[in-house]
């Protein structure tokens, strides 16, 4: 098998508030012998907020990002659920609407680019599951996470809307009973924790607009994991990570109970199992200390 190679869309967070996510992505790719071509030309995906203001502009910008992956002739891999949603949704809308695609391409033409629709877009989590496979991953584990109860937190924008999301990967995900992250935990030797909030919203996208609502959602998510005896949580989404890791004070206040758990990025968890060092994985960049490594 030839070496796996993808165009990496890092998103904005990996370069700012979650440096550990970028570090662990690179460390893990190295361990998995994956080549990542970073799309340094890419802009922000709009995070579904620019979409509220100017939908057409967000389509043009996302189409531009995809056009760069197409230029490399590679599948685009995302490491943020919200990047995945907005990029995949742009692709879906342009691929099914020739008129809209023409309007977007008219703009892209001004800067010498074209959206063709030739690159697939998938989250790193699904790239690992689909292209490497859990069986092979299991064989690569050198430090099984067998002493840990790990609570998966899926993040909305990787599992809903399921019709769109299931276009992006081979392994179909049931949004009411998702299993990919559970399977990944098991492959790493850990014990997956089942709890009601694992496929629910963390509140990130309303943190400024509706802080109380957002804090209650965060609190319920962490509390759900704690009540199911989780030692820590794991998520494929850096925005969920930020909400669950940095907002524990507000969350505790909102639900009237102290809640806090270490929240690892999916890449950090797999990296630990595959023998990456805690320095490589940037474990010191968490607000809730990762004290078990």
């Amino acid at each position: 098998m030839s070496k796996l190679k993808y165009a990496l869309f890092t998103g904005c967070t990996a370069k700012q508030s979650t440096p550990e996510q970028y570090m662990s992505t690179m460390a893990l790719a190295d361990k998995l012998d994956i080549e990542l071509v970073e799309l340094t030309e890419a802009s922000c995906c709009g995070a579904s907020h620019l979409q509220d203001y100017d939908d057409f502009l967000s389509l043009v910008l996302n189409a531009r990002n995809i056009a760069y992956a197409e230029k490399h002739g590679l599948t685009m891999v995302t490491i943020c659920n919200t990047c995945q949603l907005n990029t995949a949704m742009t692709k879906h809308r342009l691929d099914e609407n020739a008129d809209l695609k023409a309007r977007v391409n008219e703009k892209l033409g001004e800067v010498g680019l074209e959206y063709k629709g030739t690159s697939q877009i998938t989250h790193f989590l699904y790239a690992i599951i689909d292209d490497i496979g859990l069986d092979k991953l299991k064989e690569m584990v050198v430090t099984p996470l067998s002493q840990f109860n790990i609570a998966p937190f899926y993040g909305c924008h990787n599992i809903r809307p399921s019709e769109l999301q299931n276009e992006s990967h081979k392994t179909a995900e049931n949004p009411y009973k998702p299993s990919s992250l559970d399977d990944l935990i098991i492959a790493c030797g850990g014990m997956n924790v089942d709890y009601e909030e694992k496929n629910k919203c963390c509140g990130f996208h309303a943190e400024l607009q509706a802080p109380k609502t957002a804090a209650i959602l965060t609190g319920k998510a962490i509390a759900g994991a704690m009540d199911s005896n989780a030692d820590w949580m794991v998520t494929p989404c850096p925005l969920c990570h930020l909400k669950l890791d940095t907002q524990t004070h507000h969350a505790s206040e909102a639900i009237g109970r102290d809640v806090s758990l270490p929240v690892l990025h999916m890449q950090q968890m797999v990296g630990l199992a595959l023998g990456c060092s805690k320095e490589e994985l940037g474990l010191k960049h968490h607000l809730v200390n990762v004290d078990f490594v």
Partner: protein
Amino acid sequence: MGTHTITTQKVNFKVFRFNADVDYLPYYENYEMEVTSEEVVLDILNRIKWDHDGSFSYRRSCRHGICGACSIKVNGKATLACKQSMTSMTELFGNELTIEPLSIKRAVKDMIIDKGDFWEKHDAIRPYLISDVNEHPEHEHLVTPEEAEELNEADLCIQCGSCHYACPVVEINEDFFGPAAFAKAYRFEADVRDDAHTERLQILHEEKQGLWDCVKCFECQEACPKDVNPIDKITKLHNMLFKEGVATSNVATRHAVGFKHSIAKNGVLDEGGLVLYSEGPSIVKHIPVAAKMFIKGKIVPPWGITKSDNLDEIKKLVESSSTAKF
């Protein structure tokens, strides 16, 4: 033509039971049934009532996915019982199915809930055509097929409540209108005959109750049995707030607009800059968390941001492709 084979399988149902008149707490009843591939969820509700317990209560009427009465939850998934095939349910969840009302805390008797809050919010967004109709018109009031197309999807709503009771914000914030009311509001906002666009948008712009409190979880789109796609209508209403000049400057509108400024400047987002732009002087409340994040190396100062390569392209596209003003 191939022959159609009917298959059967054994399914265990765990059914929510509660009678607000006599029960202190709800409980679950278990039923094991042979289910055929031709049955829908409503057939199971009927069989529970007809074959096992005549007191089992649920709403049903049209049996054709039009009246919206029979929506319930199966393993947490909102389901229009008369439309959802049992095969699709066992394919999704296996052979252990939990049957519950749309909202447990609003249960009155078994599957029957008090939908009072749903209708109250539905009424609050003025879900009707507001137009100064000339009673003696000289000619027809023409609506083009393209104009009608704009509201067709939203018009499919049957008010079943599936999206409303799947929305996590509805559960937390009792003022929040919820996805069904928003989709209905859009249906009239997109109607060219309506004269109350601005008025209705102002109601939708209000914080706590309005559009800006949506958390973008897509539970509503997932729950809708009629492909109304409520969150898509929420986005379109957001766009209308700006297009119609209803959006006033607040943390939510500045947050949406701030993305454009940030992208035009750096290509990527300046996270700190966005929060500052959105919050204004209220930024002070974020200082304690920001300080902790700074110590952990989670905050990049504006001068440390790695801008996108080929930033000129992005600047040019922001200039040429913008369609909204604020």
